[in-house]
């Protein structure tokens, strides 16, 4: 029999078997009998009145079954849909388009090609309006107000602030040293290699909807669909959302896009299954963006570099609708982590969300909610301060780090950091990369007129949302869940409320159960993504799955162990107190030969359980974490810059990450490597660009440049921080703070380090 591996082992991934053979089941692979195709007519203007839409030629196109416009949705009250952020968003516009590539009409046809023909034949007459594109100008008095539907006659969506503004202002006025800097983090796109799509299958007889969909949060979607369509007779027990294999999510598959709603409406209209798959241009031009934060940062410090206060002001471009995916109480996400790894008690942060004529978004792109933005803001400011003080940026950081003995540490903006060894992480990164020697080399090179940059980012994240007293989405608390069933032969099916998009949940979760129950990973099947079978959960995004659903798996396993002890006592004719647990079996203390394995116990649970006990061996847990977790790390990047061409060559990049208890080191390293490359991209190449008319100029992979093999940085050394630095799960204690932090680590820390390296190179 195979052995149970459990934590700390580089178990090869269970999910690989199907992906390597081309047997994955992604959204586009789903085919149903009689299925129709949906394609979308999109706006060529960023802002325009729709004067008329003529469907006639489209309806006469061979294969076209129907054309749906905004006006067609009005009788069903489906032309608008609510967003997660208490705003609403057009499914299709009735008379005004709000951004370039916005959905204007849907064509349903018998094939993908016929649907595209139909799209080309729909005639829309527009009257262009002036678009509002600059979020800062959008806030100026007299700026045209673009959201005609709202009573508030302003482009400001909301104002959010936290901290002691007066105290910070006083400190900035009186401090010996202050620095101020504008920082823009550009609008970027997750650009997962699989785009978004769905197959909606409405059964008019049963009144049942099956929605196959590229979603990172299937249960939340089911509830939203039920709430939005209740007036049309859909009910939650007759809605089944299935999220099949996902070809990369990175936050981009959390929002609800109009295409999903249109396919559902089309299936109801035609009585047939309807498939919608967006193409790459639609994906890049209309789906949710990330970042787009215009930040103004200020720091106050003493002459010798002790930071005393921080102020951050942000104008956040949210596009035409606030369709961000943040917890309800956090319109600016967790930007309040912007005090970073540093010890000072006066801080203030404010964010203004602004409407512009661009697509909506603001997603948690390979990080927790707006944490990348916060990290870049503070790390950039610390470097600006170091530059002003003419101090080594590593030394300035060292001077301001929260020290290990200060944990748990209450941050100036209200978070309780669990643990950290920031100096330890930075020292380790410096040692691996040979920091002091590099500084000397840099000095010599500069003397020769050559450019060489060394960039540092020492970050603190906030992940694992989250405690139910603070975190909810549309009122649904942000717990997550695991359900474990042990079959009579000792094999396991485990189901979760999360949804993997490449993170390797099937392997990681199996290892958690193997660790807790001693059952080999290969005997454990892990399932996610089907709302008819999985326990309710909030899904996978914002680095939350392992700290929430992973913890739920551990606790559900312990519930099973509790029952197993009773069964073992019955089988061994011993008292429960006289039994001890060793991975995979209970034995009588002092008589290790008298033992029952978990497999024997499982068999007995169905064949020979004690009188009066329920049969079966299964448990479910809905885990509500007591706090978030606060991973940290230190990244250092070294680059050479060609003075003549500006070409950047990253020589070396060292990442030291606090990963908490490492469940699978192979997967953790893989996540870090992927995050590094994604973080490099916006520093060096990726940005969504609009022209003066609001037309997206980066609508294909020819223009929106992803890192490829050649552009990817070389010579990376990944050093892992000591596990001991994490105050999280003590494996044998019943401390329930699962602290496996490392799934989809943040992408932008490398951005800061690379950006700093570039800056250092130039100045």
């Amino acid at each position: 029999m195979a052995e149970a591996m459990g934590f700390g082992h580089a178990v090869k991934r269970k999910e690989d078997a199907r992906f390597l053979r081309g047997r994955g089941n992604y959204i586009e692979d789903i085919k149903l009998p009689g299925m129709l195709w949906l394609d979308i007519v999109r706006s060529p203007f960023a802002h325009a009145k729709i004067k008329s839409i003529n469907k006639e030629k489209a309806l006469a196109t061979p294969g076209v079954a129907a054309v749906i416009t905004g006006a067609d949705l009005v009788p069903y009250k489906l032309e608008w849909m609510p967003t997660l952020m208490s705003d609403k968003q057009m499914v299709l516009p009735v008379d005004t388009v709000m951004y370039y590539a916005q959905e204007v009409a849907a064509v349903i046809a018998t094939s993908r090609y016929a649907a595209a023909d139909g799209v080309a034949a729909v005639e829309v007459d527009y009257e262009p309006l002036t678009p509002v594109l600059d979020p800062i100008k959008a806030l100026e008095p007299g700026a045209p107000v673009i959201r005609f539907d709202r009573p508030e006659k302003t482009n400001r969506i909301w104002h959010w602030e936290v901290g002691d503004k007066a105290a910070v202002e006083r400190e900035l006025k009186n401090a010996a040293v202050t620095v101020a800097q504008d920082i823009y983090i550009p609008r970027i796109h997750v650009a997962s290699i699989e785009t978004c799509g769905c197959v909606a299958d409405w059964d008019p007889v049963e009144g049942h909807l099956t929605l196959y969909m590229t979603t990172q949060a299937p249960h939340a979607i089911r509830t939203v669909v039920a709430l939005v369509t209740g007036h049309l007779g859909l009910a939650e027990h007759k809605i089944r959302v299935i999220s099949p294999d996902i070809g990369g999510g990175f936050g981009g598959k959390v929002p609800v896009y109009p295409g999903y709603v249109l396919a559902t409406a089309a299936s109801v209209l035609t009585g047939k299954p309807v498939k919608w798959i967006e193409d790459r241009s639609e994906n890049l031009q209309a789906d949710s963006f990330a970042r787009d934060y215009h930040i103004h940062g200020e720091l106050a410090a003493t002459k010798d570099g002790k930071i005393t206060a921080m102020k951050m002001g942000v104008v956040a471009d949210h596009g035409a609708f606030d369709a961000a995916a943040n917890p309800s109480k956090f319109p600016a996400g967790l930007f309040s982590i912007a005090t970073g790894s540093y010890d000072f008690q006066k801080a203030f942060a404010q964010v203004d969300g602004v409407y512009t004529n661009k697509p909506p978004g603001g997603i948690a792109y390979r990080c927790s909610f707006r944490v990348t933005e916060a990290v870049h803001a503070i790390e950039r400011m610390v470097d600006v301060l170091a530059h002003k003080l003419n101090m080594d940026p590593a030394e300035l950081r060292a001077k301001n780090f929260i020290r290990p003995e200060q944990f748990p540490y209450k941050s100036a903006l209200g978070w309780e950091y669990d643990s950290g060894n920031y100096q330890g992480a930075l020292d380790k990164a410096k040692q691996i990369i040979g920091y002091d020697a590099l500084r000397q080399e840099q000095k010599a090179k500069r003397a020769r007129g050559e450019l060489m940059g060394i960039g540092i980012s020492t970050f603190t994240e906030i992940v694992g949302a989250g405690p139910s007293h603070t975190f909810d989405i549309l009122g649904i608390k942000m717990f997550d869940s695991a359900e474990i069933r042990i079959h009579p032969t000792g094999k396991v099916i485990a189901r979760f409320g999360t949804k993997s998009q490449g993170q390797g949940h099937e392997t990681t979760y199996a290892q958690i159960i193997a660790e807790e129950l001693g059952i080999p990973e290969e005997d454990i099947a892990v399932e996610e993504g089907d709302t008819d079978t999985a326990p309710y959960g909030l899904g996978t995004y914002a680095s939350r799955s392992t700290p929430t659903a992973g913890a739920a798996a551990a606790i559900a396993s312990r519930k099973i162990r509790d029952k197993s002890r009773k069964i073992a006592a019955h089988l061994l004719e011993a008292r429960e107190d006289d039994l001890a647990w060793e991975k995979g079996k209970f034995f009588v203390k002092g008589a290790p030969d008298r033992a029952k394995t978990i497999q024997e116990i499982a068999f007995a649970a169905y064949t020979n359980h004690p009188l009066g006990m329920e049969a079966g061996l299964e448990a479910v847990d809905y885990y509500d974490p007591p706090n978030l977790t606060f991973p940290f790390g230190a990244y250092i990047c070294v680059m050479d810059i060609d003075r003549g061409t500006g070409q950047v060559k990253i020589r070396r990049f060292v990442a030291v990450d606090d990963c908490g208890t490492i469940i699978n080191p192979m997967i953790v390293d893989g996540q870090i490597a992927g995050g590094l490359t994604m973080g490099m991209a916006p520093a060096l190449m990726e940005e969504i660009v609009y022209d003066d008319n609001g037309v997206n100029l980066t609508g294909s992979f020819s223009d929106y440049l992803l890192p490829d093999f050649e552009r990817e940085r070389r010579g990376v050394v990944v050093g892992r921080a000591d596990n001991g630095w994490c105050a999280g799960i003590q494996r044998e204690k019943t401390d329930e703070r699962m602290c496996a932090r490392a799934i989809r680590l943040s992408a932008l820390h490398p951005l800061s380090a690379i950006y700093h390296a570039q800056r250092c190179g130039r100045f």
Partner: protein
Amino acid sequence: MEKVTININGADYSAEVEPRLLLVHFIRENANLTGTHVGCDTTSCGACTILLDGKPVKSCTMFAVQANGKHLTTVEGLAQNGKLSPVQEGFHEKHGLQCGFCTPGMMLTSVAFLKKNPNPTEGEIRWAISGNLCRCTGYVNIVEAVKYAAEKMKESNQ
């Protein structure tokens, strides 16, 4: 409509198709082999890479009629008698895939490359596969996977 017959992984698939039908759609929808994916429509990402008479091509940028009478290999044709090919094995052993969406194209490009260059340097591997995009892995482990496959193929040839 045009009648085409295309041999994929050793089996003939015949159909009446529109001249504009892309090869990738023939593979996925007529032959029902869904391991070949579409990622970009502009020949940029390489998720749709297949082998056409042994050469890697991006099947989203070719019409099915152009492949009439040709022999294709897709990801479904890599394993032989249930045994993974060295490249597939390398991707598994070296964690060269995460979401798996780019993986079929990545592996087929690697197979063709290693046939031409059985003893590649890291730089040659990177150059060879630079027409395929991956968003999850940062490429580090894909390079390791190709190296693993090269070693494995050398061993089995000895």
